[in-house]
């Protein structure tokens, strides 16, 4: 460091500083995600699980699959059914886990790396950093769901063909219409996923520990599943987060049943908004004594 002659000269005139905003944080958070293994772990799982699922169908397609869940009998008739079945089973732990991998880590990793103090002493307000990070975590979850859906459609179509699909009401819709319904279903699926993101962000800010936040988020999700199967708690079923993962099935009825989707919106908001607000306040008010 002997080249101290190269110290930047003091600016002659004080210019108004163009200030960064939420978009700057968001862009750099996405950039940082590209360099983290957990990103590829989650997105990899989102892509590989549909492929493994289709491979399993291929080797079992001569056997009786049974009709014990929605679309089971159609798995070998139309590839469009694959992503829908994945939505059904992925709700238990796969998609909550993939979502939690980033949402639970995005604040806690700053504590782990000690970088919170580094970014909080630049030119950004805390709320801007929070918003940018929350948006990045949500974006990652959206990408994961759509990767899974798209890989499911492609792999399923290769295996079973890009064929028409039977709705839950028994009517048959064409393949293009079925594809549209698949992507609409993915969109509706994002409602409970957004809530999982909020819970992950909350645990990430509170625990300041990635592993605790990721596992904690998954545990919360599994807890809802558990409550849903406990005898005597049937009345709670419509208000559980786990139930909202099935709201997309309303789209697969003729005519479309919007009631589960509407309920999913407000039930998820009931869980997600307080979680997000608490995370926001904790982040805004916390002392950065370590990281």
């Amino acid at each position: 460091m002997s080249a101290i002659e190269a110290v930047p000269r003091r600016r002659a005139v004080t210019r108004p500083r163009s200030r960064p905003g939420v978009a700057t944080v968001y862009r750099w958070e996405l950039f940082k995600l590209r360099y983290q293994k957990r990103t590829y772990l989650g997105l990899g799982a989102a892509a590989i699980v549909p492929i493994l699922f289709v491979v399993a169908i291929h080797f079992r397609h001569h056997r009786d699959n049974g009709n014990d869940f929605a679309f089971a009998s159609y798995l070998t008739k139309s590839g469009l059914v694959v992503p829908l079945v994945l939505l059904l089973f992925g709700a238990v732990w796969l998609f909550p886990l993939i979502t939690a991998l980033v949402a639970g880590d995005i604040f806690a990793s700053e504590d782990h790396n000690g970088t919170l103090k580094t970014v909080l002493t630049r030119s950004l307000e805390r709320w801007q950093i929070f918003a940018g990070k929350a948006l990045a975590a949500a974006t990652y979850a959206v990408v994961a769901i759509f990767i899974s859906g798209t890989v499911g459609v492609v792999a399923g179509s290769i295996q079973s063909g890009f064929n028409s699909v039977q709705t839950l009401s028994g009517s048959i819709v064409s393949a293009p219409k079925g594809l549209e319904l698949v992507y609409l279903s993915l969109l509706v699926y994002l409602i409970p996923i957004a809530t999982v993101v909020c819970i992950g962000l909350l645990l990430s800010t509170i625990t300041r520990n990635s592993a605790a936040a990721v596992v904690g988020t998954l545990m919360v999700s599994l807890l809802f599943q558990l409550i849903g199967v406990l005898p005597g708690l049937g009345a709670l079923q419509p208000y559980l987060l786990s139930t909202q993962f099935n709201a997309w099935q309303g789209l697969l009825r003729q005519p479309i049943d919007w009631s589960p989707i509407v309920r999913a919106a407000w039930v998820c908001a009931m869980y997600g908004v307080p979680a997000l607000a608490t995370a926001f306040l904790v982040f805004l008010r916390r002392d950065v004594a370590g990281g």
Partner: protein
Amino acid sequence: MTDTASGVSPPEGRPVPGAPPVEVRGLVKRYGELEAVAGVDLTVHAGDVYGYLGPNGAGKTTCLRMMLGLIRPTEGTVRLWGRDPLQTVQALDDVAGFVEAPTFYPYLSGRRNLELLAAFDGGDAGDRIEMALETVELTDRARDKIGGYSHGMRQRIGIAAALLRDPKLLLLDEPATGLDPAGMRDMRLLIRRLADQGMTVLLSSHLLAEVEELCNRVAIVRKGKIVYEGAIADLKRGAGTVYRLSTTNDERAMAVCGAQPGISDVRVEHGHICFTADEPAVADLSQALVEAGALIKSLAPQTVTLEDLFFSLTEGDGVVNGGGAPAPVEAAR
């Protein structure tokens, strides 16, 4: 006009004209029963290279974190050019530095980290990346991941990150800690150069020689409280000069010293009489010794170092040895 003492920031977080770079009043931070910072008052004037001294656990880093808005004070105020860093991040405009070790994203390269921070700074910070890397001589390693950097390299990239903001005030927490001698020397030169360019520097340290060489003013903190704030020269002057005396009759000389006005803290160290006095009192003492028949074999002033004063202030009863001990706190308001 905004009153900086009233706790009100000026509109749009603009600096208050005439306000000092750092003005801390009654700063307290408690963690439960523990009082980490116990009522700190200090003022850093423009152009100061200000040393914030104290033993480990004295609350230096906590205080710096409060100055940067990372920690909320339990009581008291921090103003950076009259602006409260807890009210608006604009209070940190023209301020840069780091607390404890500078930290970065280990999975990104040095350059990427600087690009990220420049983006978070806004303005033309991105244009200064090359210059900052050159300044800290990390251009060649800029593409390497920071996870592989040595401690010294991280300190240097920390300085580079600070320079991106083209700051007028640099807050550095133990900047030379962990550096090898050459690294420490380079860090001192860099800080001196930045100060010469008009940058105000506040650095916490327990490397007293470094502070004595770099700083014009210091605050010495003990158990969360400032026990001295002011110029190093004033601190030394207030402490008086320690003299070492050897005579033909030390027993009688001790008695003479003890009775002589202006001579204090008379003691025997390593077979020599030591005392604190100012120059006129020493002249009178010389004459008194001759009259008492204790002829002087040697009489030599000993330079009081900042280290001597630091230990006097931070250990024991916190009173500087010798006469004319400095006032506990020179409140610079």
